[in-house]
């Protein structure tokens, strides 16, 4: 594989709090090639959104990157000065947020908000930026863009607002879009439309995507590969089809088992017992071990970095064969 577009290397984010330092992101590594789509999956609080925000240096205070690199086009964004980093934001890498209502300025017409990027980053004139905004609105499937451009965010429906967000993200033709749960706030039918839109725009513009979500179905529909995060670490990576067919980490398996599947009616949904660990404490052994059905004595001590598993995948589990075996016996995906 040639050089990846984005490569996150051993990224660590720490949040110093009164009760101790929270290791929100603890040595995360992954890479995304040009035009690729990566899903970053995990439950709430596992550090996936933090990872995403750390890439662009947009961590909320007092969170800080304590070590690691974010290589984008051969340059380390972590070490970059604020000014050039600002020029990368929105121009080369843009971001889509979860809540299209709050992520749009309530008192600014949406057309202006879309035109702002091209005006600011590409130095376009007001007029050409406005034309670009209309073109983008047409691209993301907003009907009657001339009229909608004059609307304020509260005058648009949730789906329309998310389309506007996508138009803003695309406005400077970036190489990479970071999506933070872009469909979570939308109802299911609209979710589907937005995902289809993202997919087709990816094909059309060749933009790479990092999609943070807790929804495996979303990943299955839109991504090429995925990285599963648990308690601040990546525990499994691989191509979407491979991982879904044969998860090699018990956490991944547990996540999949907890998704309702209408093709195979199970007696009950399997939930993962227990709760994720407090990220303030230091860890001995595998972080998932206390909740893991395959946990053995050797899981309780040492560290568990990602290692290469069959099929070019990576897993942090040392008993991944057992996990895969369990998945073979009782397939998670009926027809992948």
């Amino acid at each position: 594989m040639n050089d990846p577009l984005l490569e996150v290397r051993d990224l660590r984010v720490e949040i110093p709090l009164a009760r101790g330092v929270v290791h929100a992101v603890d040595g995360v590594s992954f890479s995304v090639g040009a035009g690729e789509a990566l899903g970053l999956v995990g439950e709430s609080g596992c550090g996936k959104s933090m990872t995403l925000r750390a890439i662009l240096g947009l961590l909320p205070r007092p969170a800080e990157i304590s070590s690691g690199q974010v290589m984008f086009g051969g340059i380390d964004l972590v070490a970059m000065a604020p000014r050039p980093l600002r020029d990368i934001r929105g121009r080369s890498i843009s971001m889509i947020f979860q809540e299209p209502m709050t992520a749009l300025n309530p008192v600014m017409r949406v057309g202006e908000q879309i035109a702002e990027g091209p005006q600011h980053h590409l130095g376009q004139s007001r007029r050409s930026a406005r034309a670009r905004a209309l073109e983008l609105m047409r691209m993301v499937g907003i009907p009657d863009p001339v009229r909608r451009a004059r609307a304020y965010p509260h005058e648009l429906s949730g789906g329309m607002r998310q389309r506007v967000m996508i138009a803003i993200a695309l406005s400077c033709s970036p190489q990479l879009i970071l999506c933070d749960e872009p469909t979570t706030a939308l109802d299911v039918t609209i979710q589907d439309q937005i995902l289809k839109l993202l997919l087709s725009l990816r094909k059309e513009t060749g933009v790479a995507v990092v999609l943070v979500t807790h929804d495996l179905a979303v990943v299955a529909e839109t991504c090429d590969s995925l990285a599963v995060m648990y308690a601040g670490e990546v525990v499994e990576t691989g191509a979407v089809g491979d991982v879904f067919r044969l998860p090699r980490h018990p956490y991944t398996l547990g996540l999949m088992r907890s998704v309702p599947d209408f093709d195979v009616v199970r007696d009950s949904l399997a939930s993962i017992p227990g709760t994720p660990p407090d990220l303030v404490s230091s860890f001995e052994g595998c972080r998932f071990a206390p909740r893991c059905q395959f946990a053995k004595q050797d899981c309780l001590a040492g560290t568990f970095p990602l290692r290469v598993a069959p099929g070019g995948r990576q897993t942090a589990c040392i008993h991944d064969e057992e996990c895969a075996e369990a998945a073979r016996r009782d397939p998670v995906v009926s027809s992948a």
Partner: protein
Amino acid sequence: MAAVTAPLAADPLTIPRARGFRHRWYRTPSFVAGLVIVGLMVGLAIAAPVVAPYNPDHQDLEHILAGSSAHHWLGTDELGRDEWSRMLYAARVDLRVGFLAVLFPFILGTTLGCVAGYYARFADTLIMRLVDVVVAFPFTVLIIAMVFVLGPGTRSIYIAITLVGWVSYARIIRGEILVQKRQEYVLAARGAGLGDRRIIIRHLLPNVITQAIVFSMSDIVLDILAIVTLGYLGLGIQPPTPDWGAMIADGQQFLTTKWELSTFPGIAIVITGLGLSLLGDGLADLLRAE
């Protein structure tokens, strides 16, 4: 570029336009009442040269301290000047100074409030300690003291009111910015690579400025009162230019024989204050609902 056609069936395109400012202002009684009163006041002040029967400095020495008559509607003062004409010209001066005096602290306070709220840390500490210092003194006392030091006159009034009045705007704007800057759209703006100044001016300011505008309406009342108080104390607008405060002060000695001299300028101040307060209230209602 080919348009991407995603199905739209289930997505209602637009939520019906909320009734905006333009549709509702005439349904807000306090706003309409305030607008009428202030409009009338400003109208009379502007039209003073046309409406006033006399020049404010014209002395009718045959009718000194005259009661109301067809010639002098509200009578004359101790120098034989027409009370009604002087009140009209005083409105011109007092309203102009009042509106201008609110503009400078508005600009200064909003700017400093933005800086304090957005950058926080050192800038915030510095600016807010400065605010504390100014707030520690009563508004009117501080203004009077400053004008006394600077010397009487309009310029001193502007300077004093600006130096004292900005703190309210700074506080309001800072508080609003502190809330607004945590909103996701600010993060989105930063994510879009916009600079701090652009974020403050283009994104934050339009979201916070309404509170300051609403406050400025009641602030004008306060400023006009301060100007009038200064005039009353002889520190304000200098004679012979008419000013409600000076008129009240001058009429005071004739209060038992000719009460109109002090009372009517007083009523003018009350009506102006009432009008501006109503306008401010109505504006607050309208902008809040937005």
